[in-house]
């Protein structure tokens, strides 16, 4: 908690808080000192435009350590800019009112005094130098990766994010040893789950075009560029769900490329980790879900991986069973599709564009207090909470729901490969089966 204490000390001006105190959201129960005075009043006015209630991507409600560093740097700059603005406009207003043409004599034809000019160069130079010094310091501090405790690879693709968790040298993932299974790389998409109080380093790249990873409350954004690896530090002490969005224009469905970062207490993260590594279990014979498994294998598994899924159709001999390995390169231009092993453990889908939860259940999770957040998140998507309408619409005709390059004319340039999920012409029965099957993926 040392960093947080530090933060409380550095926020010496309460200007921002005076305004936000009553509305600091559930996920951000930070106490700040209130310093009255004129600066605070002006600050509040400047900050007015910036600290709203609940916009999940508000850049002025930092939670993560790095976001806090940015915020501590930026609000004095905003304040200074505001003061300078007020001074300039004040001067202008006085000029406009005082020197209006009231029939006064023609003024002296002079280009002015050099002293005044030099003064007007010196003042902004001094102000900017005062801003520049801490700026350089924070730039360096934000780039610091020495004390990384957990490495997660993030790969952007049109129009979703994939995460793979590295197994550390000591056989742990982010410092957590799995209880039952052996540690293996975990692949998820859309929602990034990280343990609280852990300095996580995202190492990002992209499979196609440039994307940008941005969780405003945890850190600034970082472009993820194909062929390069860029890194970004995320960390938070407060459990919760932090929304973000791809912020580098990445083509047709750029608006539909979102993501969330989920911060869980260590216990809950351990639970999540164990669940991710749990071996695959087939649905019970004869259920709708079992039919769904077969449909999944024929319709979905060419692109979507479900770890441990085995194709045992048409044979009783277990030796003939083949592991189902997706090979999206043949069908998808960027060569990957989201791993669905634990789809219902997440609560959004299709690039975090749509909710897997109904509105009420979503609110339960998203607006949960930090203490109860972990449990509610780990409950995953239950049948009662499933946002079946949108999931159905998606399975029926995904390109209609989220614009993707799926029509034939658009595909000639990519050798017939789609970007995003194509229209699959599934029957309503198949959709029923698939939903039943997918509901068990958690």
């Amino acid at each position, binding site marked *: 908690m040392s960093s947080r204490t530090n933060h409380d000390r550095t926020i010496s001006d309460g200007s921002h808080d005076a305004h936000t105190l009553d509305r600091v959201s559930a996920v951000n129960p930070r106490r700040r000192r209130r310093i009255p005075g004129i600066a605070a009043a002006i600050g509040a006015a400047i900050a007015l435009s910036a600290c709203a209630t609940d916009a999940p991507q508000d850049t002025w409600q930092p939670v993560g350590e790095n976001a806090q560093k940015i915020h501590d740097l930026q609000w004095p700059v905003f304040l200074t800019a505001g003061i300078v603005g007020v001074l300039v406009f004040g001067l202008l207003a006085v000029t406009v009112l005082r020197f209006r043409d009231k029939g006064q004599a023609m003024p002296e034809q002079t280009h002015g005094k050099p002293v005044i000019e030099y003064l007007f160069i010196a003042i902004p130079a001094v102000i900017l130098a005062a801003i520049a010094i801490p700026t350089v310091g924070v730039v360096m501090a934000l780039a610091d*990766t020495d004390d*990384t405790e957990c*490495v997660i*690879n993030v*790969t952007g693709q049109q129009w979703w994010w*994939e995460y*793979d968790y*590295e*197994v*550390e*040298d000591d056989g742990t993932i982010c410092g957590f040893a799995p209880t039952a299974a052996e540690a*293996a*790389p*975990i*692949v998820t998409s859309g929602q990034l789950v990280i343990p609280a109080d852990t300095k996580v*380093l995202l*190492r990002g*790249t992209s*499979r196609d075009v440039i994307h940008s990873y941005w969780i405003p409350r945890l850190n600034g954004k970082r472009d993820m560029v*194909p*062929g*390069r*690896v*860029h*890194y970004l530090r995320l960390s938070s002490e407060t459990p919760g769900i932090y929304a973000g969005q791809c912020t580098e224009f990445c083509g047709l469905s750029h608006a539909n490329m979102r993501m969330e970062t989920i911060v869980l207490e260590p216990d809950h993260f351990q639970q999540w980790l164990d669940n991710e590594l749990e071996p695959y279990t087939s649905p019970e014979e004869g259920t709708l879900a079992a039919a769904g498994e077969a449909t999944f294998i024929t319709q979905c598994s060419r692109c979507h*991986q479900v*770890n441990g899924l085995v194709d045992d159709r048409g044979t009783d001999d277990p030796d003939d069973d*083949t*592991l189902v*390995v997706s*090979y*999206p*390169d*043949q069908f998808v231009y*960027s*060569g*990957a599709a989201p791993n669905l092993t634990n789809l219902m453990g997440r609560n959004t889908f299709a690039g975090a564009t749509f909710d897997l939860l109904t509105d009420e259940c979503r609110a339960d999770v998203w607006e949960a207090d930090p203490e109860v957040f972990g449990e509610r998140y780990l409950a995953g998507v239950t049948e009662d909470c499933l946002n079946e309408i949108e999931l159905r619409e998606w399975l029926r005709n995904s390109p209609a729901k989220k614009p993707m390059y799926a029509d034939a004319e658009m595909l000639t340039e990519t050798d017939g490969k789609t970007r995003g999920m194509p229209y699959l012409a599934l029957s309503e029965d198949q959709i029923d089966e698939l939903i039943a099957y997918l509901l068990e993926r958690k």
Partner: protein
Amino acid sequence: MFTTGAVASLAGTVAYGVLAEGTMGTIGLVSATVALATLAGIVIFTRDANVFADEPDTFDGAAANAARPGASMWPFALGLAVTTMTLGLVTYPAIFILGAILFVAGIAEWILQAWSERASADASHNAEVRSRLAYTAEMPVAAAIGLGIVIYSFSRVMLGVPSKTSTIVAFSIVATIVLILGAIVGAKRSITAPKITALFAVSGVVLIGGGAVSGLNGERHIHEHETTAYIAAKDECGAEKTYADKHASQTVAGKAGNAEVRLTAAGTLVHRKPGDETDRSSALQLPRSNANNLLFRNDSDEERRLVIDLAPDYEGSPPRICTTLVDPGGVQLITVNFAVPSFAPEITDIGGYRFYVPGVSSAELEVVVP
């Protein structure tokens, strides 16, 4: 008359061609158009339209008629061209082409000269008419040819010099000479035009002569720079000697890649990732279906290369991929794209993905593709 006819028949042809969608009739009309256009050209060219042949007084007294033809080099040039072409037919095609170019140029110049001489009775005006038409074409062409010869000769000389280092020396010396001469010419205002011409002529002869000699001697041997993709396609991942552009790995993009894989002096492979400046010998985790840029740094004393076996049966995926042979202390970029994850049966069958270095049995690095 002919000009009007040519325009009308062109319009007619186009209209007919569009309406009838290009039948035989169009061909006839096109032929007619071409014929009329040719006639029109002749009429314009000979200024026939300006002077009425049935008015002898006017015709005889036309300014054009009063001109005397001047000396001309073009008959000779054409003769030379025909000879060259014939010579070319029995020897090399290049000579024939040269002759043909000379032939076309000669005819064009001849026509232009003949025509300009009949422009008026004023010889100086005729000369101006000629130059005005011809220079706009002649000057760019002459400049292009001249520059081309200089550049080509110079490049032959530079490529003929036995080593890359000596080209740098040679270039510096030539540049210095040019600079000194230029300075002398610039400083001495009294220098006369013939002297400068002579200077240029001598340098031109030296340059072209040098170019010709070097060109005949042939270029020095220059290694082809091979890329990892090229080597992979030829599957030259053993001990074969291959050459790469060493600078290609020094780009910022290369350094911002996924990881650096290093062959240590002790003969082990370690990796280091951006944002984590420690060497690790544990498995290297890389995303699938992604162009992973890796740097291979060879810290051993021998020339070594980095190799990885890939899944053989997948579309667009070569059986294995490797860097070129890297000098001790050298660096080379390798781009690896994994089509299937490590747990796919065909990969587990070959023992998983792993980097290895031929000739160093202890150098192995496991790669995990989730």
